[in-house]
């Protein structure tokens, strides 16, 4: 196993969980800042052409993760295909939207803001904020703020996808590579003294393997 792969492995294993936490924290903060009922991040799954709930705060949290729907449907779909942020209000007035949404998510929002998650050339997914209080008319300043959250979420989603891709590579390499990757990850996390001892042991093991 090359040093490079060991480095990738050290980054991939364990980091997936951190990036998920980062995404979760982004939707939590977005929900708080807008004083909204819910906020979610959808990941665009290129293989299946679906949008998948990746992080949810507020209404639906804990139940919706992993649920998916075709990328060209719904308002999240509009936003993904047009690459344009969008705000829609008075959604509850539309009976068809209400029924379809309630069936898939369990509650019907009155309004929502949705923004594409763009990173470099790719559209990675969509961030939505549902039911912000309608005290005043929606403003472009809110749209800009949402855009800033979207930038953060896009970076987190990009890292999460990279970590998953690295893990897939390691899994494809079989159990040997996985075991070595886990070792590299542990080594990376170890206290300096333990790390030094582990490296000495590894050195001795290398000599033994060469001699035999």
């Amino acid at each position, binding site marked *: 196993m090359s040093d490079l792969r060991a480095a990738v492995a050290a980054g991939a294993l364990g980091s997936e969980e951190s990036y998920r936490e980062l995404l979760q924290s982004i939707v939590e903060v977005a929900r708080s800042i807008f004083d909204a009922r819910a906020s979610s991040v959808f990941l665009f799954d290129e293989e299946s052409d679906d949008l998948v709930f990746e992080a949810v705060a507020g209404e639906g949290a804990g139940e919706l993760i992993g649920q998916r729907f075709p990328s060209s*449907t719904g308002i999240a779909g509009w936003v993904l295909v047009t*690459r344009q942020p*969008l705000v*829609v209000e008075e959604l509850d007035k539309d009976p*068809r939207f209400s029924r379809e949404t309630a069936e898939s998510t369990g509650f019907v929002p009155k309004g929502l803001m949705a923004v594409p998650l763009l990173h470099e050339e790719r559209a990675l997914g969509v961030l939505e904020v549902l039911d912000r209080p309608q005290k005043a008319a929606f403003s472009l300043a809110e749209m800009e703020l949402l855009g800033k959250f979207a930038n953060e979420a896009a970076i987190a989603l990009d890292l999460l996808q990279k970590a998953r891709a690295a893990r897939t590579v390691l899994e494809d390499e079989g159990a040997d590579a996985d075991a070595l990757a886990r070792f590299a990850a542990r080594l990376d996390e170890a206290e300096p003294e333990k790390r030094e001892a582990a490296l000495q042991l590894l050195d001795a093991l290398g000599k033994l393997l060469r001699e035999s």
Partner: protein
Amino acid sequence: MTQEPADLPAWSLPAGAGERISIGVDWPERVTRDWAFGDATGKGVRVCILDSGVERGHPRVGEIQGAVAFNRSGEDEEVEVVEDTEGDLCGHGTACAGIVRQLAPECSLFSARVLGAGFKGSGPILLAGLRWAVDQGFDVINMSLSTTKRQFAELLHELADIAYFRRTVLVASAHNMPVESYPWRFSSVISVGSHEEPDPMTFFYNPSPPVEFFARGVGVEIAWLGGGTILSTGNSFATPHLSGICALVLSKHPELTPFQLKNVLYLTANNVGGEK
């Protein structure tokens, strides 16, 4: 034999031939909104909505003159154009068409569906749709969408320039974030962002491009699938406001080139010479 100016491949101009390229616009001393589009209805102007399709018979849209859809088919996934019988699968195109119709009630509307059949392969479909729309010689093409893929940027740029010189005006949604996407960033198109004013005829010239104009895009009542309406905000809906205004100007002054039309928009913008 004397050729008409439009037919003349004008790579150079011989001495004393200035009269042969006289311009058929009777410019007033001051370009006002009344001169530009007073009493105009959009009649005679062909507007293409390059989007997710348009719902047939929506009261906000009325009659449309034609609809096509672009699909990828066969083993080599060639993009083919077919007559569109499905209308609008997601509602975005219907919303845009409704806004153009509101501003230019007598314009001819056409729908070219390039969105809605999934996200995959949307780049080649978008390119094929735009190429088709430019070949059809529409007066205005509304593009409330963009792509972030650089591999399509060069071809889009080429098409935008072809349109510009063929007198087809491309009106494209800008991003409200510093995102590299196309075609709105090209100078041969008219790019549109949103302002917060409630008047649909209010628009501003932006002295700090790349976004060139701001039109109504906040709290807009848009056509919604199933014949209804809904309140929405986004540059997607600012764009058809400016497309509608372009249709009004062109119905009164069909001889204007995209270059001249952009000048008229500049001169009649609310922050330049337009009514406050």
